[in-house]
């Protein structure tokens, strides 16, 4: 709030006619009371509970006992957690590297008004309709090395140990997660690309710019805010992504796909170490919030400059 105010301050002083500040625009703040109530009850209270729980030992039975910082030291020094943190970083970076360029290109492609592009868009959005559990189970069957896609199509090179080989399982997950989420992000880019005024392209064409030049000098800069939004969703989403991984590999083979959210779940609901799971949970919240805040600052979206000055 204060940071944003400070940024906005000089702007207001330079805007010419010093309008009297309106008393209050929009409906009463009371209108947000139900939302705030729900937020407090379902987000803030449980969050505080998790922080407290991370300083206790509790196996789900009996009452939690105060343990001081014992959970924190044991979880942070546990190689399983350290491995999980590394895996989460790998999954996040790899997901972003795959999803961001692909969905940007697809989104710009679909922004065209041709009939075949419309048909393609409709088909591409299908994965959005499926639940993660259904996608996971379907892919598990497709990737089965003995009765899966490879056998059905008679292509032996598709019969790999996709989910059972530690070096293949993570790339497979990145692929399936991308399959699920690229349609959504393409949708964002499609909408954003359609917002770009045609006059810009017309002017550029008159000046002799080709397709590549217009893409890099008009489309990409115009999509800046969308890139920040979509990247934030991708990065925070991958950090906390759970369901598909749970269904497809359950952290396996061995520890090869035990990312942080899964580590939290397995600790809490398989090993019944609620204190340790709470530590991982708190870590996730802190990292998730920090990353989304940083992305917002770096992307400059707190200023949200207009990209269409002079039009």
């Amino acid at each position, binding site marked *: 709030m204060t940071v944003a105010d400070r940024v906005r301050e000089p702007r207001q002083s330079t805007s010419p006619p010093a309008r009297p500040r309106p008393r209050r625009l929009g409906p009463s703040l009371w209108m947000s*009371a*139900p939302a705030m109530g729900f937020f407090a009850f379902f987000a803030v209270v449980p969050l505080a509970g998790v922080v407290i729980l991370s300083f206790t030992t509790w196996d789900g039975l009996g009452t939690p006992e105060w343990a001081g910082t014992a959970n924190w030291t044991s979880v942070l020094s546990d190689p399983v957690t350290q491995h999980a943190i590394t895996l989460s970083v790998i999954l996040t970076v790899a997901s972003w590297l795959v999803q961001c360029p692909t969905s940007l290109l697809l989104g710009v492609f679909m922004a065209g008004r041709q009939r075949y592009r419309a048909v393609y868009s409709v088909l591409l959005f299908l994965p959005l309709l499926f639940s993660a559990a259904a996608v996971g189970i379907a892919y598990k069957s497709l990737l089965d090395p003995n009765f899966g896609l490879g056998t059905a199509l008679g292509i032996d090179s598709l019969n790999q140990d996709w989910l059972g080989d530690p070096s293949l399982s993570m790339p497979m997950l990145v692929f399936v997660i991308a399959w699920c989420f690229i349609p959504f992000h393409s949708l964002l880019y499609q909408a954003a690309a359609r917002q770009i005024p045609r006059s810009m392209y017309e002017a550029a064409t008159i000046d002799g710019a080709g397709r590549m030049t217009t893409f890099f000098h008009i489309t990409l800069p115009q999509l800046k805010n969308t890139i920040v939004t979509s990247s934030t969703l991708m990065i925070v989403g991958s950090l906390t992504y759970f369901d598909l991984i749970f269904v497809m590999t359950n952290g396996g083979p061995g520890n090869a796909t035990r990312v942080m959210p899964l580590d939290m779940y397995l600790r809490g609901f398989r090993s019944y170490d609620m204190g340790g799971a709470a530590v991982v949970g708190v870590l996730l919240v802190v990292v998730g919030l920090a990353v989304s805040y940083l992305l917002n600052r770096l992307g400059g979206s707190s200023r949200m400059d207009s990209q269409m000055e002079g039009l």
Partner: protein
Amino acid sequence: MRGNKRLVAIGAAASAAALVLSACGGTDPGSGGEDASAWVLTGGSEATFRSSFETWNSDNADQEIATDWFANDAYKEKIRTAVGSGSAPTLIFNWAGGALTDYVGNDDVVDLTSRTKELQERLVPSVLESGKIDGKLYAVPNNNAQPVILFTNNKVLEGAGVDGPPTTFDELLDDVAKLKRAGVDTPIALAGQSQWPELMWIQYLADRVGGPETFNAVIDGKPDAWSSPEMLKALGMITQLVDAGAFGDKFGSVVADANADAALLHTGKSGMLLQGAWTYSNFLTDAPDFADSGDLGFANFPSVEGGKGDPANIVGNPANFWSVSAKASKEQQDTAVDYLNDAMWDEKYVDELIKNGGVPVTVGAEDKIAGSDQAPFLTFAYDMVKNAPNFQLSWDQALPASQAQALLTNLSQLFLGQKTPEQFAKAMNDAS
């Protein structure tokens, strides 16, 4: 207008608060004056449970038991918090082992030793033993025994020049080599993706090499129990099998929930499969022709030369169990105990279970089994259970939850060759 708006907002806030409060209230099955309750699992022996509770409720209108039905995973996650928060059902469905030990340690379940004497006489001792902690009975079996059995596809074995299932570990290795030579890429089907089927191998090998003591040392918390010479030898035999290609090179992607391991056997891509007795009913539904053809064989796990374990010992899940919640009212507990004594394992219960392809855990069920449609398999499995000197509960159930997950992960790494037997033993010693 403004005031009006504020009124609406306050009203909305108030109704939201009311919603929130009512959501927290919940019900408290522990309070008196209510019917006894039971949470039951769907699938498996569901039909037997349903008919038993229906009969009980229609015959005992004054002692009704209310039932709620859950899928396996959903139940496992719900029951622990329910027991922990004192809102458990009267009859607690469980797997004995580590979770039961935790319940007993927190005084969540009642001692049934003296109150179910008559029922106990009807049951197979090795199964009943699993429900005991420190000599006291806290859980009674409520469905079929699920021993782990070596299933074979005799047609595949014959095609490779192997006659019958292996009786020793060396024979098993020979058979694997023969099957490989005959072009069977996956001699033994193993659902490595699901992890728990891998447990069956180490459970049997550890028993055959060192007898039940090998794992009991772990349960008793003896230091370095995982690195005993017997355990290390058994772990080494796993590596030996993996290196010999016994499970093929793609077992890590085979999923047991989808019965992909059973499918490997009945489609003739594998010669053997080590799985729980419940797999037999999968064969009946998924591949009835195979089950009827006489190609489906079943045997106990091979012995190990020079091993201390009795080759008649078995591993698996002796059964599922009922415990009675200590938080339930006196009347609810009485109802539950009456149900256990009067309705469990009566003639009808046993008939129903056999009809659904289950192995009963009562003594003297031979005649009933012999007359059933699935007589050869059920007789084999029933004798196996009845004659077993020791019925080892699956390790992931027997161990405290904190170690069970570490066991599955480390074992999966052993099968993948990411850990040597020594590294596995060290990791498990550290976890316990």
